[in-house]
């Protein structure tokens, strides 16, 4: 068994040494991402268009006239072979042409543009608050296992993690917008060509809800990572060598805890994107999520396909970005695994 471990360990170290270059690492991740996106496009297409059963009847309902059916059929290209349909659709997406909405007739790309910006602003503002707060709280809680902050973080995790985002959102509305202390607008509806970030008050509740729902898991993960690190042999040795506590936390514990925590951060960001779907509906926030939900309700297949592809691509991008950051920031954490 010992033999087995060492040979494998050596092989892995070698392999990593050869791929350790940031450029190669980035390239590898990008290729993976492209492959994943291809799989996702297949899934999206398969689930909406290629499954047996008549999608047209599903969309138009049982009362549709033959003429309407024929027109939609042609519009979706359903009379052509499946492979051709998929290639058309996918090559369109690569050119950022997502087709036209079945209900409004406007190009999906136009519809997506502004809303994507609104959603990204929501996620970005949330992340900008969430990441530093979660890392600070997690680190502080880890310094005193069993302390007040530690219990607070675990307790909040149990409660907040149990609840769907929309429940947290509704509770915040009750608390801060309608009944108890109405200081904020309950919805983020915008008029005319106003952008949602023009009035920061409109952003507060959606951002707060996302921060609250995403925070416990991330904080808990950071806490665990830092706590494990603080209990490690090398920190004990540093203490026994007279290194100061401040330096131990900043130079010894944090850098090693950042690797695993960034992984969780990446997951959290993609989770945020999923979370925006219900949050945007709660606050009537003009983003991709609320557009997606109304498109699903209207059976607007092309819009649904477009938005799902965009959100999936964004999730992947965010995930890769943070993952890459982690790999570059703490290159030694990989070596340790081997």
């Amino acid at each position: 068994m010992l033999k087995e471990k060492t040979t494998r360990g050596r092989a892995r170290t070698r392999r990593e040494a050869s791929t350790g270059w940031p450029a190669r690492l980035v390239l590898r991740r990008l290729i993976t991402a492209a492959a994943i996106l291809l799989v996702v496009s297949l899934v999206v297409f398969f689930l909406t268009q290629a499954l047996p059963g008549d999608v047209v009847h599903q969309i138009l309902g049982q009362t549709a006239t033959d003429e309407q059916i024929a027109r939609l059929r042609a519009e979706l290209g359903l009379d052509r072979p499946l492979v051709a349909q998929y290639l058309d659709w996918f090559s369109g997406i690569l050119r950022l042409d997502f087709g036209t909405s079945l209900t409004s007739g406007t190009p999906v790309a136009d519809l997506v543009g502004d809303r994507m910006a609104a959603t990204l602003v929501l996620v970005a503002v949330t992340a900008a608050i969430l990441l530093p707060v979660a890392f600070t709280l997690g680190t502080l809680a880890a310094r005193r296992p069993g302390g007040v902050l530690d219990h607070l973080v675990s307790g909040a995790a149990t409660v907040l993690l149990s609840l769907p985002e929309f429940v947290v959102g509704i509770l915040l509305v009750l608390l801060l917008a309608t009944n108890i202390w109405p200081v904020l607008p309950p919805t983020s509806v915008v008029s005319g060509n106003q952008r949602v970030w023009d009035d920061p008050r409109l952003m507060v509740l959606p951002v707060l809800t996302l921060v609250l729902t995403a925070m416990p898991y991330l904080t808990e993960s950071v806490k665990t990572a830092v706590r494990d690190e603080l209990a490690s042999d090398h920190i004990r040795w540093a203490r026994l060598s007279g290194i100061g506590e401040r330096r131990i936390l900043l130079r010894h514990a944090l850098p090693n805890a950042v690797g695993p925590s960034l992984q969780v951060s990446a997951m959290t960001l993609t989770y945020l994107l999923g979370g925006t779907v219900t949050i945007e509906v709660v606050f009537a926030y003009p983003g991709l999520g609320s557009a997606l939900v109304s498109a699903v309700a209207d059976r607007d297949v092309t819009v649904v396909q477009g938005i799902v592809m965009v959100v999936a691509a964004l999730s992947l991008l965010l995930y890769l970005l943070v993952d890459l950051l982690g790999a570059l920031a703490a290159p030694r954490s990989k070596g340790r695994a081997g």
Partner: protein
Amino acid sequence: MTPTADAPRAEIRDLRIVVRASGEAVVPGIDLTVEAGRIVGLAGETGSGKSTLGLSLLGYVAPGLDVRAGTVRVNGQPVVGEGVQNLRSVRGRTVSYVPQDPSSALNPSLRVGDIVREVMAAHGVLDRGAQRRRAQELFSAVGLPADASFHRRYPHELSGGQKQRVAIAVAFALDPAVVVMDEPTTGLDVSTTRKVVSLVREMSARTGSSVVFVSHDLRLLMSFADRILVMRGGEIVEDVPASRFAEAATHPYSRKLLASLPDTTTLAPRRYRRAGTYALELAAVSARYGKTTATHAVSLRVPTGECLALVGESGSGKTTLARCVAGFHSDYDGDVLVADAVLPRAVERRALAQRRAVQYVFQNPHASLNPRRSVGDSVALAAATLGGLPRRQAWSRAREMVERVGLRADHMVALPHELSGGQCQRMALARALAAQPDVLVCDEVTSSLDVSVQAGIVDLLQDLQKERRLSMLFITHDLTLARVVAENTAVLLDGTVVEYGDSQSVLQAPRHDYTRRLVEAAQATHDQM
């Protein structure tokens, strides 16, 4: 730093350390004085309190333990008891520490040069030039490459021995009064261990630092320490000069420890052998892991009723070979023959009779027994499937085997984690015996056990071998152990057999350089006895 050259470097007075939760004493009350420049060996088994005592010199007690009474002073400065202030400035400078496992003790994200410089910076050596010069000096003193590129390496780019040298360099960086070393050679192979301990001697002589060397390896301590303390149940039961330990140690427990060291003067008796019959034969076995080759065309033979020891360091391929024999590793070229018949490679392909013929005992006894099945069931299962016995007979065969390996029937209802390591290894042995094998493969079966338990297992194996005419393939990293249990010895280096013959000639007239080094390393410890 020292008031007078001869003043004791460390003084422990009436130290009492207890488990906070239960109040049970880990160290019931100890006095100890460490003189300047001496190497004090602290021997004892797991749980004897030797590490707790060692760490108290740094004013450290493990979480969950409490100091109830007593004082510890290092170089006159209190670290435990009244008057303790600013432990941080004492640790690393007046008293330093070398940890057990250097791979987990070196911060993986710091370069080794920075690790050394950091400790100097923490104790007021702030000039970077001075730090670098001292680090250079230390690295060459401990036999590490002194070039700048080595300073820039990360711990994972170093071998186990190099990491331990880095840790030693750090410990001696500020010429401390006392260096506490907590089993610093565990996990290192024999020749690296030798080098590390002679380095410790040298550094101690060079700097005048006293060393408290905690180890379970009595033989090692006898080979280089000035004074040996034996601990048991938190108390020092023996305190004699190392050179005279063998004669002067009087406590029954010390005598027991001494007795359990493999006696290197007697060789395994030669046994009757019918010419030309081999219980096990390896013919040009080349084992692979994917593209890496672990062994290169290894050919070995185990005559019926004899034992062949396969000696090598970790990574030499010895366990891989053992796994090929058992069918647990099937990616190999060449053949494994039992009673002159080639065995299918994977154990799943082997007929029941072939599986019965070869039984395997693992290194880690707890991991080799199903955690959710009583150990008795595990033994009975072997008797039932391989012995073809119905339930009731299988259980009584199991009981017979369990009693044969020195356990009682009431041990059989236990789950693995309810037994000690030694008991578990006996159970694993009982399971192997219940199959009534022709060949027993023992993979480092004693290396995860305490010394006094090891001796019991080795005795048992020898008895069983005689009694049942078992043929054995005995995998070990310990040359002296090979000499005791095996008629023949093969030495494996990087997957190649470099030495192969009867144990006596291998040990007395080694032909290969590597074997010679191993023998010298073993001899060096032996000569001190």
